[in-house]
């Protein structure tokens, strides 16, 4: 059971921040999509599309933990000064065609799964995007204090 009232408020917040024409979501409220979401420096692209999965019990205890971004992003590793795969991309599950229930052009693409899990169940979708931005700005830093991540497969 998702809390529709909370998700509505958070989608309205995304709309205010990114504009009505860049934010999409299905009636089921299972995910929220932001088109051309701006990326920090140090990546091979200036923007990516991003889908944040809204978990089953979001607003009733469920925590944001899964998102998808463009599959071809790489990040500059300052230690080696070259562009490398971003950590927390799921390498075994890299390029997927999600069936999103729409014919929008942005849906007809492959996505890459990124697993960054919020620890606080009160954090919003916007807060997740802020954290994702922080992570992508310094993807090679140890982010354990901010996110839970899948570990030890």
């Amino acid at each position, binding site marked *: 059971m998702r809390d529709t009232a909370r998700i509505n408020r958070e989608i309205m917040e995304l709309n205010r921040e990114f504009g009505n024409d860049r934010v999409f979501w299905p009636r089921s409220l299972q995910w929220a999509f932001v088109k051309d979401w701006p990326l920090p420096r140090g990546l091979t692209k200036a923007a990516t599309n991003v889908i944040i999965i809204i978990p089953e019990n979001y607003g*009733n205890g469920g925590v944001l933990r899964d998102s998808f971004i463009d599959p071809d992003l790489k990040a500059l590793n300052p230690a080696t000064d070259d562009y490398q795969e971003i950590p927390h991309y799921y390498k075994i599950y890299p390029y997927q065609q999600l069936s999103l229930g729409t014919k929008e052009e942005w849906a007809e693409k492959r996505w890459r799964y990124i697993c960054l899990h919020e620890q606080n169940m009160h954090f919003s979708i916007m807060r997740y995007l802020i954290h994702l931005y922080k992570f992508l700005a310094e993807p090679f830093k140890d982010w354990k204090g901010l996110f839970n991540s899948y570990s030890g*497969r």
Partner: protein
Amino acid sequence: MKKYHLRLKESDWRALRGSLLQEDCMERQAFLEMGKHGGEDEIILHKIVPISDCDYAKQNAFFVMPKDEAVVNAYQLFINSGVCIQGHVHSHPFTEYAHLSSTDTTTFRKMASSLSGVLWASNIPGEFLCFQMVLGRNPEGFEGHLTDLKGEPLGELSDIITVGDKGINRLAKEKTAKVGSINPLDERLNRNVKWFGAKGQEIIADTHLAICGLGGVGAIVAAAARGLGFREITLVDPDKVEPSNLNRLVGARLDDVGAFKVEVAGRMIQDVMPETCVNALPVGIEDPRAQDAILRSDVIVSAVDGLGPRAELQILAARFLRPLLDLGSGILVDGSGAIKRMGSQIIVYIPGMPCLRCQGIDLFAPSYGIAAEIREKTGYVVGGGIEDSFTPTSVVTINQVVGGWATDLLIRYLVGLGPIPHYVQIDQWKGKVSELQFEKNPACPICGEDGIEGKGKDYTPPLHSPMAEIENASDQQLSIPVG
């Protein structure tokens, strides 16, 4: 006029009366954030928004009016709360039995109208209502109305139900037994009356019990409950009887293989107590029919498999202020087949007290839904297999112990022989029983200060997306093809 009852936590009821009816006999008031039940004529208290004495523009023994800032603050909190009813309660400390005066009604209509304006200006979607109540010195000396946003009455408050550690208490001006109640003097109930008294039997005869999960454990609870004389029992389980269930599924016969487990349990109950109304629902917890029936109940027993249904039941119990007894059991066998541990636990959630999550159950691990699908397809494995995880129990003796013990706690709670322990751990392998105590986490999203207790049904329609959705597309499922 339609009758409504108000359900709230015992601790909130005490806090409300304590703050509004003080020794100085001055009128006081508070705002309430309230939820609404889906089908029942019930409103539920989510949160009290108190008004401190310094926030009154006028206050004496017969009149009280908050400052505009306090009202605006309450409106803002209401808008952000996600609930659909804003309540307004004040006291008449000069009388035992309070009544809403024409001044009260006029003032309330103005407040409802201004709230309507604020909601319109905020562009918040939803169906909003108002509630007005006055309290007298006598706990049963209340009067209240549910109204629309113009202050027009939609229904009248008939009784107040408090849910606390010592049971469920009903405050009503007119005590009436519900239709279909079983006569507590019935000979079949004689031994019950000798156990928990005639008054206790009356309570049971007016109680609706929901049992979710009718496997080995749930069937034991149903068997124990069949002769207790419940007014109504709801049974929820989508599974059918399999031959391997017959070693432990009480009430099942050889020719029941293939029948729904709820049918078997329902038959078992009505063979003994045909007056008990049985709702046998062969569906999952997420099914709206199941949720409607569960939310009409007074208390929920959860004997389901898996974290997903347990999370759903905890959410329902919290949002609608229903006590919940969660039963879990298992047996740990190592690789050589040797038994390492076997036992069970009963975790009790009483609204206002620690929830299952605060008592150690990781309810929101992604065991189902999209997150679980992702986990599965990425190869992420929950737990480590047989070496360090419990298997679902199929041991009849474990079921009998936990099912019987839980029914005992249930009865003790309902008839007021409580308080009961909130966490009972039964180590059946070593023959030890422990009672554990947990603190509520103030930041808990369920039972914490900003939790979901009392929010009721979410009436908010989803915002309309500009996205062109494919007609009849199963947008209920985000499909992730294996590739």
